[in-house]
């Protein structure tokens, strides 16, 4: 689903063009890409706060998006840090840049990676412990009743036009959703999909469908990912599951999307302590979801999210830095 | 009892009429109240009584309250104070349903700008009143067709109002009002929007219809000629107050104030006044057949002519000179035969028609009614006075000077 967002970042390129190369002696000035989605936003602010208060860097956030930011980092070494870069979107170019030493993968910021899958609400999973796998769920069209056609079940797919629409549709066929009496519903938009979840959740109704993490939705409305019962078959995925023309889809599961913090070699060289911090820094989707839900609930910015994280999860971030740095950061909060 | 009684009606336009009403009742003028309170006095203490089967005309300049007054009669406007009684029923006491029933059956209205339903054909416009009365469709169509024919629009039944000329549209308006057979016809400047020729045609048609129908008609106009032509009685409004109420000739000959006088100044009296208005009793009635007796009588009188009667029968007019000549030539002929009855005018003809006869005659001309009965005489001098001297009281008319002999 990130791919759809990358399409709309022309403005970010312009913004990047204006940045002066930083004189990055002794940490000095550091630029961090502030991506235009919420999880990357609060990550950027966490880095900003820690690098500024803990390491005395002078941090500037610059707006960014996957493609323009990674291109700019490869070609112009600007900005210094992309805290949350979804590798799949530009894998070949990034891999080559890393191989050529123009970029460095610092660490996986999302330990679980970006996760896509089919989910049911936590309360439903608790109520129906027998539903563990996709196949279990698809046996229960009576449970996931379609309000517009009570004889059938409703499966909320991925909005039309997104890449996940193809994969969801193919997997739906592979797992015989239609034959099991389900209708694959196109929610039309992320808003529609989110709305269907929050409506179900507020009223504790059954729900099954596509979603991804980390997201505020999964933080606010905890859900359980259904097991596809087969490991990711990359070859079939690339030759069928992910394509519009997939005549005979087989059972498969989503790969995990790798999400890395990427830095320029210049930063790694000029600020080895900062680099050490970034190599350790990262969190699980559960934490990310939680922070995102907190942000969304209060309509907070990334900065508020970062402060919330730093206050709520000290045991997590204190492991990333030395004790005195931790004290400095703590004091500054 | 009168058909319609309007008693001490006040109408104040505005949000808080009560306060302004008190001032109006205290006698303050319309302009004063308007500039102080922003309220408009539409009607100020109007009391009128309208006779059954008569045409009552309300006249006044624009803004004088004519439309306001007529709309009180069917309660399209509610008075601020006062009573309106129609056929002994206080209209203001009617509830909604009764009021609708009252409007459906008792009265119908003809409007200055016709007020036709543009989306209905002529026949459906005319049948509207009956439709409101709940008359069954076929019956009301038949009735409407009759009325369309009566007003001379046969063949236009299925036209829409916009396809008709103004005059034709107002005929539709008239037919629509009459079709429900109302007792009272309210006509608010019904003919004002028409050009003079069509207008006078419509007036004639109304008079003709009224001769057959004998409706009680309340007719609004700001045109005195029209008022005089149609009205049995005329009320004149000024700034919401009644200036004068009376018969047409009273208005014309005895205007109550300058406002009325200004109204009547430009009226062509010769066309409006009838002979009976200027006629008076003959100064000398001769009832003898004998010439000498007649001569004697005449010599004892200031006039040198007399009107000869055989009992109640009017035989004609005779002058002193004529009598003398007859006495010398043919002493025993009858005065009855000598009297000249060739020059008479009828009492209800307008002065304009009687004018040539009267002017050509040496003596005041005898006035007779339609059956030939003697009513009085009308003199040249009296006639000229009435036609020229507007503000003089007819009673103070100067005496006809005694004719001097040759």
């Amino acid at each position, binding site marked *: 689903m990130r791919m759809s967002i990358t399409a709309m970042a022309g403005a970010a390129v312009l913004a990047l063009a204006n940045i002066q190369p930083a004189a990055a002696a002794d940490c000095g000035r550091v630029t961090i890409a502030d991506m235009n989605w919420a999880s990357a936003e609060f990550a950027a602010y966490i880095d900003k706060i820690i690098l500024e208060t803990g390491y005395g860097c002078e941090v500037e956030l610059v707006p960014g998006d996957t493609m323009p930011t990674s291109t700019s980092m490869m070609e112009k070494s600007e900005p210094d840090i992309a805290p949350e870069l979804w590798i799949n979107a530009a894998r070949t170019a990034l891999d080559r840049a890393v191989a050529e030493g123009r970029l460095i993968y610092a660490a996986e910021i999302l330990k679980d990676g970006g996760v896509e899958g089919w989910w049911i609400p936590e309360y439903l999973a608790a109520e129906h412990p027998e539903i563990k796998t996709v196949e279990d769920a698809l046996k229960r069209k009576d449970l996931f009743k379609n309000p517009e056609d009570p004889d059938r079940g409703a499966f909320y797919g991925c909005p039309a036009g997104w890449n996940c629409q193809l994969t969801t549709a193919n997997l739906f066929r592979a797992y015989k959703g239609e034959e099991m009496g389900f209708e694959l519903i196109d929610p039309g938009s992320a808003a529609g999909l989110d709305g269907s979840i929050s409506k179900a959740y507020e009223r504790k109704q059954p729900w099954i469908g596509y979603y991804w993490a980390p997201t505020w939705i999964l933080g606010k409305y905890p859900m359980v990912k259904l097991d596809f019962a087969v490991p990711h078959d990359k070859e079939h995925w690339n030759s069928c599951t992910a394509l519009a023309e997939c005549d005979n889809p087989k059972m498969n599961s989503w790969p995990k999307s790798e999400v890395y913090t990427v830095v320029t070699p210049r930063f790694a060289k000029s600020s080895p302590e900062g680099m050490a911090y970034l190599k350790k820094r990262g969190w699980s989707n559960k934490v990310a979801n939680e922070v995102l839900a907190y942000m969304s609930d209060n309509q907070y910015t990334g900065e508020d999210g970062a402060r919330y994280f730093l206050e709520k999860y000290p045991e997590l971030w204190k492991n990333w830095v030395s004790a005195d740095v931790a004290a400095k950061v703590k004091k500054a909060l | 009892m009168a058909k319609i009684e309007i008693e001490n009606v006040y109408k104040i336009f505005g949000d808080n009429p009560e306060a302004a009403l008190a001032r109006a009742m205290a006698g303050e003028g319309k302009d004063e109240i308007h500039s102080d309170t922003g309220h408009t006095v539409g009607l100020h203490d109007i009391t009128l009584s309208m006779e059954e089967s008569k045409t009552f005309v309300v006249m006044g300049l624009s803004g004088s309250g004519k439309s306001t007054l007529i709309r009180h009669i069917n309660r399209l406007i509610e008075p601020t104070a006062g009573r309106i009684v129609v056929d002994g029923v206080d209209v203001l006491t009617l509830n909604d349903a009764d009021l609708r029933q009252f409007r459906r059956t008792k009265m119908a209205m003809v409007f200055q700008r016709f007020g036709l339903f543009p989306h209905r054909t002529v026949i459906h416009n005319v049948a509207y009143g009956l439709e409101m009365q709940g008359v069954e469709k076929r019956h009301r169509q038949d009735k409407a067709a009759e009325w369309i024919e009566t007003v001379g629009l046969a063949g236009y039944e299925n036209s829409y109002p916009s*396809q008709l000329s103004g005059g034709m549209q107002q005929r539709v308006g008239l037919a629509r009002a009459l079709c429900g057979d109302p007792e009272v016809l309210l006509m608010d400047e019904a003919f004002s929007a028409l050009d003079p020729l069509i207008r006078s045609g419509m007036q004639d048609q109304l008079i003709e219809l009224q001769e057959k129908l004998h409706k009680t008609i309340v007719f609004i106009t700001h045109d005195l000629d029209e008022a005089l032509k149609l009205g049995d009685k005329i009320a004149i409004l000024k700034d919401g107050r009644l200036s004068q109420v009376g018969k047409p000739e009273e208005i014309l000959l005895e205007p109550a104030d300058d406002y009325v006088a200004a109204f009547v100044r430009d009226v062509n009296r010769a066309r409006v006044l009838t002979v009976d208005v200027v006629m008076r009793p003959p100064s000398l009635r001769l009832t003898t057949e004998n010439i000498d007796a007649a001569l004697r009588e005449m010599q004892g009188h200031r006039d040198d002519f007399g009107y000869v009667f055989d009992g109640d029968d009017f035989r004609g007019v005779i002058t002193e000179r004529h009598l003398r000549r007859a006495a010398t030539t043919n002493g025993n002929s009858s005065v009855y035969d000598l009297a000249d009855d060739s020059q008479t005018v009828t009492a209800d003809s307008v002065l304009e028609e009687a004018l040539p006869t009267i002017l050509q005659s040496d003596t005041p001309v005898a006035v007779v009614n339609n059956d030939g009965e003697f009513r009085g005489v009308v003199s040249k001098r009296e006639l000229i006075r009435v036609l020229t001297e507007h503000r003089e009281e007819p009673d103070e008319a100067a005496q006809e000077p005694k004719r001097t002999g040759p």
Partner: protein
Amino acid sequence: MADSNWLIEFPALSRDTLRLLQRSIDETFREFSRSYGQALEDFFEPLLWFMIWFERLLLNAPWWLVIAVIASCAYLASRNWKMTIGVIAAFLAIGIFGMWEDTMRTVSIITVCTLLAIVIGIPIGVMMARYDRAQATITPVLDVMQTMPSFVYLIPVVMLLGIGRVPGVIAVIIYAIPPVIRLTNLGIRLVDKDVLEAANAFGADFKQRLFGVQIPLAMPNIMAGVNQTIMMSLAMVVIASMIGVKGLGQPVLKAITNQYFSMGLFNGLAIVAIAIVFDRVSQAYGHRIQKHRQVGH
């Protein structure tokens, strides 16, 4: 001086107060949705069944029959052969380009929206024309409905009713109903006072005035309102598809996200074609029931 700070900086509510306010509004709405959402869904259920039934009717009927019915509607409304042939051509073209199903779905939802807008909108317009108070209170509501960005009310509608046809119709109607209401109100208020007075003078009651005089004479305005409502509903088709309403909006949305130019163009043109058909036919109908207006002196 701390005291005069408010002169320079706007004395806004503190962030915490604002947040509290937002949270409590959100929470109230959630509470409402929890307590009444189901009742609302039940309330709208008949509408849902009708829409499903109508859509299936259009989808399952043979295409030539549907075209024949639409064409005869167009002919009956307009009494114009040229227009009827145009309508047939438009629908044939839509079929040939493979957009028949989506078009039928869109036609069905637009039809339902239009009917509902008329059934709800005209009485409201009548009420506004009759009571100044109603006009004063409803007009700003209409302003809000027309200017509020659709997404703002899409979210609560979806929270209450989920995604699909009913919330779609509600979203479309919120956006598209104001013209019918406004123009009904306006049309009735513009009815010639003299004509109305004449009806009164002949003892017409409220119903006779309304149905015999006011509505017929307000018809050109009302029809203009209906026409605008249809157009605006069609414009909302794409937005409605964002909450899962099937039809021509979905491919358009897909085309937007993926920049499929030709796909967007075809489906967009199909929407335009439906719009033109609805527009011309409803205008011709409005014109035809106004016979008395066509005859001049």
